[in-house]
């Protein structure tokens, strides 16, 4: 372990119930240097670490006499009364306690949280799963509290709960996304009638400002990742640069202007079922092609995957392509359906595995091993393992030649969950929760 990760190691060993787990600090930065140089450093480093390693492996561990403790009772409804209950006072308190994201929060009063909880038939203490790296139980109550803080309207809670359920699917790799040095955050995509009911923007400027649902639902996800999952920048969130997407984002697909079935139908859901898809991604990478030629549009998109330095170049993942409505129309008129788009992007997105630095070459061979194929004696890297691993949606305004690529994090999948009742029955409207 290098010195930059001491805080994360300390946080993780405490979260995992092993605060005394021994650590040995590598005294040099070993990454990215030639292997021969690294080996020389490694031998020297081992000499300096020998005492720590030996003590760790053979010394009697501290705390060994302590009995294994039963899990503490979840105080899911703990409250506080600030001495200064003004808006400024509450915000100062929440900021000092690292409960906020850097913007003012709406005070999560008992009344506001109760109003939020009307929009679910799950019990407040229902645990949706454990969120890393804190591995705290994610209760419905805590999701509601963080939704209030983000400014969500009560009727947004069903979307947020489905989103958190998707995020907690191990296949999304929330834990890795939280702790990585990569700038990835988690975006939600909402499909189906509830996206329209809640006015979740899938049109003009969908990744930008201007829509209350997009802004507050996305922000609520980030607050959950901080307060429930323990993603604290510099301690357990190791992102070197971060990204605007890490403030939180929520979008809809522009189903009305799509020439094809929407994303959730691709995933096997009924058209009138509403779903939320979690996407562990960096900020959108805009891809502009001024030609109306369908193949030119797809060629430009395909060449955007494996560009130098992109997540797609290194990672084994499921990226998402966002086609603007105008570009989607051109591509559809060229006879492409979504499967044909996936196949075309996959085949034309490959690049020859050569010309990388020695370090990157080795990493690509290790991390992206399942996307490397040898053809006619040459090695090629494909964007993904399979064509169907590329997600395709239509979104944005009907006004420009723009598409986007969501270059997701390593080891992530696109995870979709239906907005449902506690028994798993999908709801057609969020108002069903308050009628019953």
């Amino acid at each position, binding site marked *: 372990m290098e010195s*930059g990760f001491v805080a994360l190691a300390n946080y993780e060993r405490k979260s995992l119930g092993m605060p005394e787990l021994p650590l040995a600090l590598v005294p040099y930065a070993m990454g990215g*240097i030639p292997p021969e140089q690294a080996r020389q450093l490694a031998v020297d480093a081992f000499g300096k670490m020998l005492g720590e*390693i030996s003590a760790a492996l053979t010394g009697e561990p501290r705390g060994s006499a302590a009995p294994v403790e039963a*899990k503490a009772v979840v*105080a899911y409804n703990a*409250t506080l009364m600030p001495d200064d209950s003004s808006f400024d006072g*509450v915000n100062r308190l929440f900021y000092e306690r690292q409960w906020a994201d850097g913007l003012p929060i709406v005070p999560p009063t008992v009344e506001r949280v109760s109003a939020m909880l009307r929009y679910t038939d799950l019990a407040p203490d229902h645990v949706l799963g454990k969120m890393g790296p804190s591995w705290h139980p994610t209760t419905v109550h805590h999701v509601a509290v963080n939704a209030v*803080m983000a400014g969500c309207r009560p009727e947004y809670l069903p979307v947020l709960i489905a989103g958190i359920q998707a995020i907690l699917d191990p296949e999304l790799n929330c834990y890795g996304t939280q702790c990585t040095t990569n700038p990835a955050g988690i975006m939600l995509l909402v499909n189906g009638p509830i996206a329209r009911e809640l006015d979740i923007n899938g049109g003009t400027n969908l990744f930008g400002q201007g829509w209350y649902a997009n802004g507050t639902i996305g922000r609520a996800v980030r607050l959950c990742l901080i307060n429930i999952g323990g993603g604290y920048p510099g301690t357990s969130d190791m992102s070197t640069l971060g990204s605007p997407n890490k403030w939180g984002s929520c979008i809809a697909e522009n189903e009305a202007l799509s020439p094809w079935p929407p994303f959730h139908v691709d995933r096997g859901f009924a058209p009138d079922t509403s779903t939320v898809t979690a996407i562990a991604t960096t900020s959108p990478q805009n891809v502009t092609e001024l030609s109306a030629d369908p193949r030119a549009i797809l060629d430009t998109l395909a060449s955007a995957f494996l560009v130098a330095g992109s997540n797609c170049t290194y990672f084994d993942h499921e990226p998402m392509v966002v086609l603007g409505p105008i570009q989607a129309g051109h591509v559809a008129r060229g006879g492409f359906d979504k499967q044909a788009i996936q196949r075309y992007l996959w085949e034309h997105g490959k690049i020859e595995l050569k010309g990388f630095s020695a370090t990157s070459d080795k990493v690509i061979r290790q991390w992206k091993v399942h996307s490397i194929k040898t053809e006619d004696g040459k090695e090629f890297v494909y964007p993904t393992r399979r064509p169907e691993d590329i997600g395709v949606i239509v979104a944005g305004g009907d006004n420009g030649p723009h598409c986007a690529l969501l270059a997701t994090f390593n080891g992530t999948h696109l995870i979709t969950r239906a907005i449902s009742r506690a028994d798993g029955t999908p709801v057609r409207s969020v108002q069903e929760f308050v009628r019953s």
Partner: protein
Amino acid sequence: MTMSETRAGDREPSQRLYVPVPNTSADSVQPAKRPPSFKGLRVGFLGNLKSNCDVLMHAAEEQMLMLGAASTLYREKESASLGATAALLDELAANCEVAVVGLGN
């Protein structure tokens, strides 16, 4: 700033706020009893696929053998960004008395 903490069900205050962080603590895990020395032991190494982690750990393997370890077992995670699989951890646990795990870059 001072404050008082209460639980739901207490007397309703004028401005009672919920705490957004779950109030739980992790299960305390009892560390395994350590051997008095690693001489004669089987030492496991779990690489995390970060750049030169394998070089560092292979060098450590050689040094541990020179210092008396009976054998070493080096394994790597399947992905740098995912935790080790249960099968991998079980293999290390079954074949090693102690293990070293790589973390970070």
